[in-house]
C-alpha cells in the first residue's frame, strides 16, 4: 500500500509540480508585463471564464464527447471488422488497401462540410467525421495484429484440426489486442479533433461552437477555457484506456514497462 503511494508520488508528482510552476510563471508574466487579456489571458482569468458559466462548458463537453466517442466506436468498429476480412484474405487486402489509403489522405476539413450537406446539422455528421479520422489507424493496426500470431501456437492448433473460427477466437483476437490498443491510443485525441472540426462547420453545439463564439467575441479567456476542457477530455479518455489496457494486457510485454 505504502509502496503504491510512493509510486504515485514518484510518477505523479513531477508533472504536477512542473504544471504548477508553469502556471505560476505564466500568471506572473502576464501581471508584470501587463499583457492584454485578448492576447494572452492570465490563468486566473481562464478559471474565472470557466466558473462564470460551468454548465455551458459541461453541456458543450457532453455534446462533443458523445460525438467523439460515437465516432470512435463507429470508425474503429468498422475498421476492425474490415481488418478481420483483410487479415484472412490477401486478395481482399490488396483490393481494399488503396481505398483505405484514400480515406486516410483525404483531409477531414474537406469532407466535414460535405457530411453536413448530406446529413444535416445533428449529431450524425460530426460522428461520421470523427469515425473517418479514426478509421485508418485501427485498420492498419488490426490487420497487423490479427496476423501477428505465434507460428508455433498456430501449428499446434492446426494439428488438432482447429476451425478458422476457433483460431480466430482463441488465437488471432487476443493476439491482436495490443495492436488494437495502440490504435485506440492514437485515435482518442483524433476523434475529439474530428468532432470539434465538424462543430466549427455546423456550429450548433459542442466545444467547437464555444470556441467559435469566443473567437468572434475576442473572448480569449473563454477560448482558453474551451481548450482546457478539450484537453481534459482527451486526458480522461486516455487514462481510462490505459486502465483498461493494464487490465486486459497484463500478459503482454508492453505492460512490463513503466
Amino acid at each position, binding site marked *: 500500500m505504502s509502496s503504491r503511494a510512493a509510486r504515485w508520488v514518484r510518477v505523479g508528482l513531477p508533472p504536477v509540480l512542473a504544471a504548477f510552476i508553469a502556471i505560476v510563471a505564466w500568471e506572473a508574466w502576464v501581471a508584470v508585463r501587463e499583457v492584454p487579456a485578448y492576447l494572452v489571458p492570465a490563468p486566473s482569468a481562464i478559471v474565472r471564464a470557466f466558473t462564470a458559466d460551468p454548465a455551458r462548458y459541461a453541456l458543450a463537453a457532453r455534446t462533443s464527447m458523445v460525438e467523439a466517442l460515437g465516432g470512435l466506436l463507429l470508425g474503429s468498429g468498422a475498421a476492425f471488422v474490415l481488418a478481420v476480412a483483410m487479415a484472412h484474405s490477401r486478395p481482399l487486402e490488396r483490393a481494399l488497401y488503396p481505398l483505405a489509403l484514400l480515406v486516410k489522405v483525404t483531409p477531414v476539413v474537406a469532407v466535414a462540410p460535405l457530411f453536413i450537406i448530406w446529413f444535416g446539422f445533428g449529431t450524425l455528421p460530426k460522428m461520421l467525421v470523427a469515425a473517418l479520422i479514426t478509421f485508418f489507424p485501427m485498420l492498419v493496426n488490426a490487420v497487423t495484429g490479427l496476423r501477428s500470431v*505465434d*507460428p*508455433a*501456437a*498456430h*501449428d*499446434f*492448433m*492446426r*494439428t*488438432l*484440426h*482447429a476451425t478458422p473460427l*476457433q483460431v480466430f477466437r*482463441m*488465437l488471432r483476437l*487476443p493476439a491482436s489486442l495490443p495492436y488494437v490498443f495502440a490504435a485506440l491510443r492514437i485515435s482518442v485525441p483524433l476523434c475529439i479533433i474530428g468532432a470539434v472540426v465538424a462543430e466549427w462547420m455546423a456550429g450548433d453545439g459542442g466545444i467547437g461552437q464555444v470556441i467559435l463564439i469566443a473567437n468572434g467575441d475576442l473572448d480569449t479567456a473563454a477560448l482558453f477555457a474551451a481548450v482546457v476542457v478539450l484537453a481534459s477530455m482527451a486526458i480522461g479518455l486516455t487514462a481510462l484506456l490505459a486502465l483498461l489496457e493494464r487490465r486486459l494486457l*497484463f*500478459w*503482454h*510485454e508492453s505492460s*512490463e514497462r513503466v
Partner: protein
Amino acid sequence: MPVTTAPALVVRGLVHRYEGEAGGLLALDGAELRLAAGEFVSIVGPSGCGKSTLLRAGAGLIATSPGTVEVLGGTASQACAAHVLGLVSQDPGLLPWRTVEANVALPLELTGGPPRGTLGGIAEAARALVQRVGLERFAAAYPHQLSGGMRQRVALARALVHRPRLLLMDEPFGALDELSREELCLELLSLWEQQRASVLFVTHSIREAVLLSDRVLVMSASPGHMVDEVPIDLPRPRTLAAQEAPSFAAYVHRIRAALGAPSTSTAHSTGDPA
C-alpha cells in the same frame, strides 16, 4: 482397437521443394521413414538438412509431393481431424493470455472434452497433466512468469493431455540448458512409458537421441535423406545412468561417424554435429 497395429508413421519417397528464386530449394529428396506403433525414434542431422520439414509433413502442416505420408493408417489431415497427434516445437508456442492450466486444457477444448476413459471434466484432466509434469504450484501462473524449461514442460503437458497416439517433437529441448534438458528427457521418458504413444523426436544432440530412442535415424543435408539407421539396444526403463554403459559411447561414436563429423573419442561432448 484394431488400428493400434498400424504403423504410427510411414513416409515414402518424400520430396519437398520450398518456392523461391532460382527454382526454390529442395529440402527433402526421397526421405523414407517408418515408425512402428509405440516406438520412439529420433532423427539427428545437421542444421538445415530438412528434419523440421519432414516432421511438418508428418503433422500435415505442409503439402508434399511426390511421396506419401501415412499416419496411423490414414492421411495426415485425417490424423489431425481424429485428434491423434501431439506436437511440441522448439518454441513452446503457449498462449500468453492463458494460465498454465488453461494452456494445457486447450487441446481438450478443441476436441470437445476430456480423453475417453478419464474421470472428471476438462479442468480435471488438465490439472492432472500439469501435476504430472511437476507444475502444480504454477497451475495459475502465466507463461511470462515461467522459466524456459517450465514453459517447455507446459508445452509437453499440452501435447499429451488429449492422449495422442503419435507425438511429434521438433528439437523440443534445443533452447534449454544442459540440466533442464536432462530433466525434461527423463520426464518425457516416464510419460512415454506410461502413455506409450509413438514418438518422432528431432534433435541435434546425439547423446539425447541415444538416451531416449529405440532407433536413431541419421539424416544428411542437401537435399535431405536418410544416411544411416542405428537401433539402440539399451535396457528400459532408462535413466541417466544409461549414459555410462560402454555401448552408449559406441552408439554415439557410430552416429557421429555417420554424420561425417570429425570422430573424436571423447564421448563426453554434447555431440552437436553442427
